[in-house]
């Protein structure tokens, strides 16, 4: 089946991101396709390129990136939610005259339309909230 995940919790602050990553791995392990993970609300923090948790703790940002790199899963971050929370890729940082950037591939800033697209075209959309 074709799955999509909507994640609305930031890493560490709640278990949402952990549960979502566990679920993502398990569904891929069962042979399903994960068509995309959409990050909205505080979920955009999962794309924070500068996250530096202690070595002996889960690294959610890297975890999502690994999933994307291993299985070709698109990681789509709502641009409006991201900008408000200080998550900008190089292009947006330049556009807003900011030094440095906080999002990089495989995370991609996209519009909310992508969420609806995923939700309406996939067999299952599972939401993980804080």
């Amino acid at each position, binding site marked *: 089946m074709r799955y999509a995940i*909507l994640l609305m919790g930031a890493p560490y602050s709640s278990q949402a991101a952990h549960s979502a990553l566990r679920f993502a791995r398990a569904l891929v392990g069962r042979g399903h396709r994960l068509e995309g993970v959409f990050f*909205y*609300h505080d979920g955009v923090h999962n794309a924070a390129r500068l996250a530096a948790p202690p070595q002996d703790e889960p690294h959610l940002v890297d975890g999502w990136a690994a999933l994307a790199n291993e299985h070709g899963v698109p990681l789509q971050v709502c641009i*409006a*939610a991201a900008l408000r929370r200080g998550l900008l890729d190089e292009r947006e940082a330049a556009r807003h005259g900011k030094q440095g950037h906080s999002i990089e591939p495989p995370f991609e800033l996209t*519009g*909310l*339309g992508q*969420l*609806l697209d995923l*939700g*309406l075209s996939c067999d299952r*959309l599972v*939401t993980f*909230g804080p």
Partner: protein
Amino acid sequence: MANDKAQGVEGDLLVILRHGPHGTSWLREGLDAALVAAAFGRKVTLLFMGEGITALVPGQTSGPLGQKGTAPTLEMLEMYDIDTLLVEAEALERFGLTVEGLMLPVRAVAASQLPAVTADHSLVLTF
């Protein structure tokens, strides 16, 4: 749109709004998702549950620090062809509100009708 006999409500997307205005971003973000779906031509139903019903209290303003609030977005729903607005009847009672006293035309839905509303949409998002 009075509280008349139970009639099937179905559509592509049901957005359940459980939070009131200003206190958190949930209401705003839920409405944005609903508007985008409607802009893409989808049939969208909004269900205001629990505290979400306070989103429809008239006379709202922008926030103390200039936050936009959600009243302006709600005024735009009709323009986006989102006209199926449901409110949880129990929430109306809990918050001492009436259908007539809300800022938009809504239909009250009793608890017994909620499962059917939830089941009759292709996609359900909760905010």
